[in-house]
């Protein structure tokens, strides 16, 4: 077997499905809530597809969808409509899905994805979108997993959940980039508040289309048949499935020399346990969905004023905010990404701390290291963190003013975290003062307070003092260390300066 034929281009496009966070379903008044424990309780004649029942559009679902479309820089249509996508499956009670075919509510758009996270040199790739449309989710088939051939069951709680489908151009070039695209998409949707994107609960799912352009032995560029991998429901799954598929397609190419018996698009599933993709459906089953406009629903006019109102109401989007942290607050690209990628609440927290302590760089260091470490250790969200933005800002302000050393500040930070939340309620400022005073952490900045200590240390270490006076600069380190140990809260710069002054006198 000849080595397959580099260089290769990987061509990936993703179809991302995002469940929208509406109170009720898209075409009826049933609750839109993940509830696998009680199957079929969030149902009515409409989402059960009973004879005679009719859908009515939930305007709130369209509103969330438009917000998402605007945030993706898509063009919102003035008129959109609903179409029936027809196929038989037990989780689809009407035997058609109400979706959008030729007039989606949103055309085009794009999302920028950072290419690699190697600090400030990061470049971004613009991934173009083909379209974004809105549709209803299907129910869930629950198959008997015992292999005893028992009946399958169907839960229609999910049927009728509003679902956004975001279809990218085949602009993605690697499995890792595809993963980053999906992560950035999740971040954006959660930022906008249109979805919780909980992948365990299926509110963010993804299908991936992938093929390769390879060069055969005659130097001719050949594209492998497109494969659609269905129902990827974790970031790791997307990356792993695509990596696997790249290898599989290369191997297949090498074996057939780029001559395929069947060049039709193939549908494959992803077996996360075995780490392989597997063939699902051949072309003989290729579906003709027989789309046609749903006569039960009227075309939807989207007023330009409404679009503008929603555009104006958009929050600052993660990409713009990341850029602002770099441009205005002078953070490194890396720090800015770490903060923004944690979600809106942490970014808000950071910005509040940065503003109140007046030192964004210091705030970024503390938030990305100390705060994130504690959150991870405690499995907490920033909203539940014991030190609010005011508290952290107060600590950092004391470092900036020279009232606390960084080391002492960490001690205050830890002490605050260990405070009993039910304990005596005082302002965080007062509490910080209390900790500083209890533990004697106040910086000893004025040389008057240091003088006796310095004299004592010099007296105890005549050799070191003599060495320094003799021109051995390094000898002062031992003296500084000793003073520091005795004077809790002393600022090392001040100690060094005072020692030099004393020894030189």
């Amino acid at each position, binding site marked *: 077997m000849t080595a397959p034929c580099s260089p290769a281009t990987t061509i990936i496009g993703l179809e991302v499905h995002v469940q929208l966070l509406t109170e009720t379903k898209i075409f009826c008044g049933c609750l839109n809530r993940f509830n696998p424990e009680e199957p079929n309780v969030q149902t009515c004649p409409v989402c059960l597809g009973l004879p005679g029942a009719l859908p009515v559009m939930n305007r709130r679902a369209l509103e969330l969808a438009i917000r998402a479309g605007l945030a993706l820089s898509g063009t919102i249509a003035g008129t959109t409509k609903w179409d029936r996508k027809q196929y*038989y499956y037990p989780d689809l009670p009407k035997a058609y899905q109400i979706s959008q075919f030729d007039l989606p509510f949103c055309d085009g758009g794009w999302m920028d994805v950072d290419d690699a996270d190697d600090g400030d040199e990061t470049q971004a790739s613009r991934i173009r979108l083909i379209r974004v449309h809105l549709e209803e989710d299907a129910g869930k088939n629950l198959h008997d997993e015992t292999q005893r051939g028992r009946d399958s069951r169907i839960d229609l709680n999910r049927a009728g959940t509003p679902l956004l489908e975001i279809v990218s151009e085949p602009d993605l070039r690697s499995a890792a980039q595809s993963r980053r695209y999906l992560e950035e998409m999740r971040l954006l949707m959660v930022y906008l508040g249109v979805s919780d994107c909980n992948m365990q609960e299926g509110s963010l799912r993804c299908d991936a289309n992938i093929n390769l352009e390879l060069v055969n032995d005659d130097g001719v560029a050949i594209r492998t048949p497109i494969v659609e991998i269905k129902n990827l429901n974790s970031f790791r799954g997307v990356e792993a499935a695509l990596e696997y598929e790249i290898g599989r397609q290369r191997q297949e190419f090498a074996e057939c020399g780029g001559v395929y018996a069947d060049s039709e698009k193939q549908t494959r599933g992803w077996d996360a346990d075995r780490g392989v993709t597997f063939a699902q459906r051949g072309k003989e089953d290729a579906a003709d969905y027989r789309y046609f406009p749903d006569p039960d629903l009227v075309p939807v006019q989207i007023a330009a004023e409404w679009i503008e109102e929603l555009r104006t109401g958009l929050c600052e989007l993660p990409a713009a905010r990341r850029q602002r942290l770099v441009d205005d607050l002078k953070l490194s690209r890396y720090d800015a990404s770490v903060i923004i990628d944690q979600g809106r609440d942490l970014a808000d927290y950071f910005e509040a701390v940065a503003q109140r302590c007046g030192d964004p760089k210091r705030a970024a260091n503390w938030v990305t290291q100390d705060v994130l470490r504690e959150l991870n250790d405690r499995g907490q969200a920033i909203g539940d963190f014991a030190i609010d933005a005011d508290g952290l800002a107060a600590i950092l302000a004391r470092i900036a003013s020279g009232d606390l050393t960084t080391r002492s500040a960490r001690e205050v930070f830890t002490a605050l975290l260990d405070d009993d939340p039910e304990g005596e309620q005082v302002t965080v400022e007062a509490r910080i003062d209390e900790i500083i005073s209890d533990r004697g952490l106040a910086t000893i900045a004025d040389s008057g307070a240091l003088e006796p200590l310095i004299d004592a240390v010099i007296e105890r270490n005549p050799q070191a003092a003599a060495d320094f006076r003799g021109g051995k600069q390094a000898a002062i380190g031992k003296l500084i260390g000793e003073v520091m140990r005795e004077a809790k809260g002393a600022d090392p710069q001040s100690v060094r300066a005072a020692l030099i002054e004393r020894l030189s006198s």
Partner: protein
Amino acid sequence: MATALESSATLLDQLTDGQTTSLRLTQDCLDRIAAHDTAIGAFLHVDSEPALAAAAAIDRRREAGEPLGLLAGLPVAVKDVLATRGQPTTCASRMLQGWVPPYDAHVVERLRRADAVLIGKTNMDEFAMGSTTENSAFGPTRTPWRLDCAAGGSSGGSAAAVAAGMAPLAVGSDTGGSIRQPASFCGVVGLKPTYGRVSRYGLVAFASSLDQVGPFSGDVRGAALLLEVLADHDPRDATCADEPVPAYRDQLERPLDALRVGICRDHFTEGLDKDVDEAVEAAIDVYRRLGAEIHDIQLPHARFAVACYYLVAPSEASSNLARYDGVHYGARSDDYDGLVDMYCRSRGEAFGAEVKRRIMLGTYALSAGYYDAFYLKAQKVRRLIQQDYQQAFTSVDVIASPVAPTPAIPLGSLVSDPLQMYLADTYTISANLAGLPGLSLPAGFSDDGRPIGLQLLAPPFQESRLLQAAAMHERETQWHLRRPPLAEDSS
């Protein structure tokens, strides 16, 4: 004694005066069903006990001086295509045999709130597909005037029930003439409202963009009364119009001044039965005598209506009926091998021939590569037909025509010739394609005593005008007072 052969207005008076009670009236309807329905086949389900209980309850409320709804204890028969909580709703199909909906159609809620007594569910062509009620899985409905002839369809059961005095009022649905044509075959008044005038919520869909629920009655006033109950803005139907509902009965006695009646000469050509031709011409003469102007109008695209309809309606039907797959409700084959086989066998066994024919036509018309040539083209033709009517209604107030090319046809005469059966819809389907209100009223009889209807069409939401024009003719002719020759009634 009051019987359901009386007009609804008379019965309401008698109920108010205490000359009769809802219980007696309901019992009389049940007695007439028991006496005649074996021969006629109007009902698929007679809801005797609940109906009597409902009637008695309404009587008690009347005695207690409580206010009652518009129908105040009148029995009403409902086509078996409307969902009724607690009563079977089969669409005359083995597919839904035994299915009892957990909810009421919007119009059924309206009927209950108006204090109608829901007496039972009427026979129809399976899923409303047909023109004779012979496509019912449970036997045909015969016109009470000639038991060897069809009641028409698809709402044949509702039309026959009113004609035979089994209920003073009935509800039907009309997708291509399914109210107006059986009204004509049975000698009663039937009205298909403007598309969007009446909620379709709970109307089991045949062709969603064409289906509309409407009233049957022995006279025009009863149709006006029932339409007042049915018409409503229902937010559960996105295609239901938010238009005020006039008090149709208030305008009824007022003749329309300087009425302009449009006639399309193409309607009176080959294929039209001689008796029908004469009856319709006579009806037009009635209007002329009453001072109306008769104008010739052009409907240049009308000749494409049948072709257009038989693409649009089956396409939508193929989609609407896909849900009957044996999974969630309805018939499931006893014997199958795997999921796809279960779908195929369940549908193959439980649907009748006409339903299958239309599902196949529609599936084909919507298939990749055929959609543009069939469904899309048909929708364009549909707009042209709509524009024809818009143009025509700039110069006339109503359009008069036959309802069907013939009076009631003998059972079995067309059932094996679907094309001829489809062509017989030529006068009625345009109103559905254009979304217009249309009404059929008694306009005479054939030589051998079969009733003949006159169709009137009006612009959208002009049901009031339609009813006024119909009342003018009814007052002059009194055709509506004739009764079918049922065995015991002649004694």
